[in-house]
């Protein structure tokens, strides 16, 4: 059984999805979704444990030996990302039951859960596979289901937002498949480990560089690097709350992982940083993302949109860590993958609670909510503090490594920008806090606290923000080892 863990990671949600669709029963589908999500978390955790103790796990699908057959290859890096994705999934899935009943048409709920499970399967697949074409296949699975999930939002603009995302996502996926195709032409292989061995021989060829360009732009589009982020704010703002919470904390993270995998494992750090100057390309874009997107977030009036822009800024931090081209920088990136998932998950879930009660997350509609929904808004405050990077929260840990990385390279100004951007984050978080706690309540007198079925998952993530902020050593150690793996290239 445990030998087959890698395949179970993907197959469980993949098979649960049609089950949901066939059952046509909202409750049953929801239960299946929750159970499947929890199962993936169990698998991911035990995979991480195995990898930490025993090294890389290779799984040959259908016993076809790589490089011809498809290989699932788990090292610390993707075991870590698998844990991130499945953790969020197992927290969001129970939350989804109540949230979705409120926001999605009843007859569509089983389909909704099916789409969610497909999306989860796709994301986990991208992460676990050791085969580049397989990456593309899973990318399409996760993207298509994500479009469907977003389109189920209550407002009609969800449709156009989903459509725009579809166009952009397809362009991105196409770029990636073009890049993969070019690599195949040059090396005749699709296996990642194999590619990493073969590519150094053809480094000089123009085709490889073009492939690099296509893969880079494709990944950056999927991970919403400024200025390729334009699809993201609307998609997040108009999707159902639970979907936003799920996608915001997983989809972009997996895209970042994809970028790391392509650039550092397949092409290798020497090629990326030495030949292609990746650090110099990414640094300005990341800084621009951090500053401008935080500024944009300050002026938003729809809180979900505000958080969406803040996500783009936070992705800037992750890419910034990569652009330091050092173990510390990558540690920051990998830590922030996890930490940002925790904080944005908590924040979007808190907003889901607000939507559940008052149907809007417009900043004016939230006036005085601090009194009426104390637990929800307290969750928002803690999540917000984490976003700002206050000590005792996970946000601080990420910023810490990021600044250490900057100082290591001697880039003082970058460290300053990171700190200043924290102040910008404080401003936009504060705007919400100000509305909720310092403005007199308007509107409906009878607004009550959100139901515990929403609050419990939200507070699980809030608690995780604090838990992993205080006991950061655990996560930092894993991230650091993962960063070392990435910088040194493929292990044995």
């Amino acid at each position, binding site marked *: 059984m445990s030998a087959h863990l890698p395949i179970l990671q993907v197959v469980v949600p993949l098979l649960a999805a049609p089950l949901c669709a066939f059952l046509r029963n909202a409750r049953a589908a929801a239960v299946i979704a929750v159970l499947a999500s929890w199962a993936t978390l169990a698998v991911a955790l035990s995979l991480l444990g195995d990898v930490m103790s025993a090294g890389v796990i290779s799984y040959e699908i259908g016993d076809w030996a790589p490089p011809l057959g498809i290989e699932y290859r788990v090292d610390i890096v993707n075991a870590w990302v698998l844990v991130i994705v499945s953790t969020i999934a197992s927290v969001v899935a129970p939350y989804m039951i109540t949230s979705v009943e409120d926001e999605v048409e009843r007859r569509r709920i089983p389909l909704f859960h099916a789409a969610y499970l497909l999306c989860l399967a796709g994301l986990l697949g991208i992460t676990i596979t050791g085969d580049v074409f397989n990456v593309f296949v899973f990318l399409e699975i996760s993207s298509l289901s994500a479009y469907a999930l977003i389109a189920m939002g209550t407002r009609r603009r969800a449709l156009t937002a989903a*459509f*725009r995302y579809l*166009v*952009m996502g397809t*362009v*991105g996926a196409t*770029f990636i498949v073009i890049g993969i195709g070019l690599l195949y032409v040059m090396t005749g292989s699709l296996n990642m480990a194999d590619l990493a061995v073969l590519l150094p021989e053809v480094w000089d060829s*123009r085709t490889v*560089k*073009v492939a690099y*360009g*296509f893969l*880079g*732009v494709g990944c*950056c*589009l999927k991970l919403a690097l400024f*200025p*390729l982020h*334009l*699809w993201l*704010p*609307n998609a997040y703002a108009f999707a159902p709350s639970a979907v936003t919470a799920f996608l915001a904390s997983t989809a972009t993270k997996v895209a970042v992982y994809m970028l790391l995998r392509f650039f550092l494992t397949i092409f290798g750090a020497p090629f990326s940083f030495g030949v*292609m100057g990746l650090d110099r*390309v990414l640094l300005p874009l990341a800084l621009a993302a951090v500053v*401008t*997107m935080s*500024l*944009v977030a*300050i*002026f*938003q*009036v729809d809180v979900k949109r505000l958080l969406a*822009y803040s996500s783009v800024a936070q992705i800037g931090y992750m890419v910034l860590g990569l652009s330091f081209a050092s173990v510390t920088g990558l540690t920051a990136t990998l830590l922030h993958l996890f930490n940002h998932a925790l904080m944005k998950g908590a924040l979007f879930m808190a907003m889901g609670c607000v939507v559940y009660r008052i149907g809007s997350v417009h900043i004016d509609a939230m006036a005085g909510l601090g009194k009426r929904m104390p637990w929800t808004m307290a969750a928002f405050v803690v999540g917000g503090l984490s976003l700002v990077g*206050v*000590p*005792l929260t996970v946000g601080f*840990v990420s910023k*810490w490594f990021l*600044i*250490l990385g900057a*100082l*290591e390279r001697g880039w*003082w100004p970058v*460290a*300053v920008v990171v*700190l200043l951007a*924290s*102040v910008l984050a*404080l401003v936009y978080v504060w705007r919400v806090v100000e509305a909720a706690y*310092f403005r007199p309540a308007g509107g409906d007198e009878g607004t009550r606290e959100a139901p515990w079925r929403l609050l419990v998952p939200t507070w699980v993530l809030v608690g995780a923000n604090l838990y992993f902020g205080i006991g*950061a*050593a655990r996560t*930092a150690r894993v991230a650091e080892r993962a960063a070392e793996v990435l910088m040194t290239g493929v292990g044995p």
Partner: protein
Amino acid sequence: MSSVPPFLIFLAGALVVPFLRRVPMVRAAWLLLIPVAGALNLWGLPEGYQLQYEFLGYTLTPVRTVDRLSLLFGYLFHLAAFIGIVYSLHLGKGDRPSVQYASAVVYAGSGLGAVFAGDFITLFVFWELLGVSSVFLIWARRTPRAIAAGMRYLIVHVGSGVVLLAGAMVHAHGTGSLDFGQMELRGLAAWLVFLAFGVKAAFPLLHTWLVDAYPEGTPTGTVFLSTFTTKTAVYALVRGFPGEEYLIYIGAAMACFPIFYAVIENDLRRTLSYSMINQIGFMVCGIGVGSTLAINGVVAQVFNHVIFKQLLFMSMGAVMYVTGKTRASDLGGLWRSMPWTTAFCIVGAASISAVPLFNGFVSKSMIMSSLLEGHHYWVWPFMLLASAGVVEHAGIKIPYFAFFARDSGIRTREAPLNMLLAMGIGAAVCLGIGIWPDLLYGMLPYPVDYEPYTYTHVLTQIQLLCFAIGAVAAFHLWKLYPAEIPSVNLDVDWVYRRGAVRVTRWTGSVVAAIDGVFRGRVLDTVDRTLRGAFRTHGPRGILARTWPAGSMVLWVSILLAAFLFLQFI
């Protein structure tokens, strides 16, 4: 009884406060119990108590090995918190008592946390918490002015914390350690830390938050505010930069410039705020001298200052509580209705003016002596001028305008009992230390070999005081003239003698004008930047608009083209 970190009692105590909303008596008892329990805990701290834990490969020390410096600040904060709590026991339904009590206790607790912090991260946490918790004492007044001032206050303090953190990180990167101890003012790390301390200590040009926010606090809130924030900063400077020469000049400037403002200011609580900067100037100057006498003087001055400044703010708070006014021109003649408050205020005023037998005298003369011992002859006269300023604006102006002067016709009642009690404790401490200075000297960080009541010290001070008392006498004579003179300008004449009137007024106006232009420029720039940012980053701005799919794809192709182009050249 096993010991706990000093701040923990306050933070945990504050958590309970909101739940006692419905039982005011229990709440009052609980609030009073917090500083008492805290002080007992502090007293019982075993020798060499400290708390450490590992974080990301660094050793954090949330509670440093307790030494006399921290211990003195610790006791002081407990005493100040106790007085402040007694003073605010009357808070009723309309004053948002839960918010005020809880934030005041957290505020005191963060001050305690900061003075026992052994590393930069802990210091940073409490540094920020000081700002965040205290702002509620300003907001609780709920006037639009108070809310705006509180916001500005918060931004400044959060900013100061961020600068501190930046400095700490650079420091950690450079030295591999996060321990907070004496630093040399060299290199980026030290300067950043220094700047962060400077903001909280209200260095010149960084001081505006203080006079902006403190007068806007609630009557009871300002009593707390006047205690913890700036004193924590002074502590940090004593710990981090003793003997740093720049501090002498910064301190001298701080001691001198506010007296011009304090003289022309009409709002008595704002006058006290300016006087506070002046007082901190003395401390900063002493830190700069850095000799054992100077440091002892600074610490003693901190202790005394907290008590008498609190006493003065309490008396003004009492006036404000019963009359709703704090402007000098609106008050006067209150001694008839508020004899006790008047008496306490005079004790506070005498203390701040360093009258012999009051506590200000025993500590300020230490700093002054240390200046001479350290051969800082250039600075000494300025500090003397500053001392004269204190006597005038705080020692005479405050009690005079509030309680005597032209009778404003206000007839009111005496302040509530708890306020009087709190002021009584403060006044007793002022007198007690003034008469038996060894009580305080015994607690100072270094052994004290200093006798305040010597012939020269007393004589110098008496001369200074005579000058001021003469001014008051003349002032009364002047008042016989029928011409109605705006009260604000009167005192300018009398302190700086007739010939110096114009110079003083001119200096005051020039300083104010420069300050005004400077602030105007900054505000203007901020405003313009904000508008610019809004144009591009606002909801309709180019960066936040919803783009059609076509132009999104355009961006993608631009980026790809740029990328490929770079490869082909």
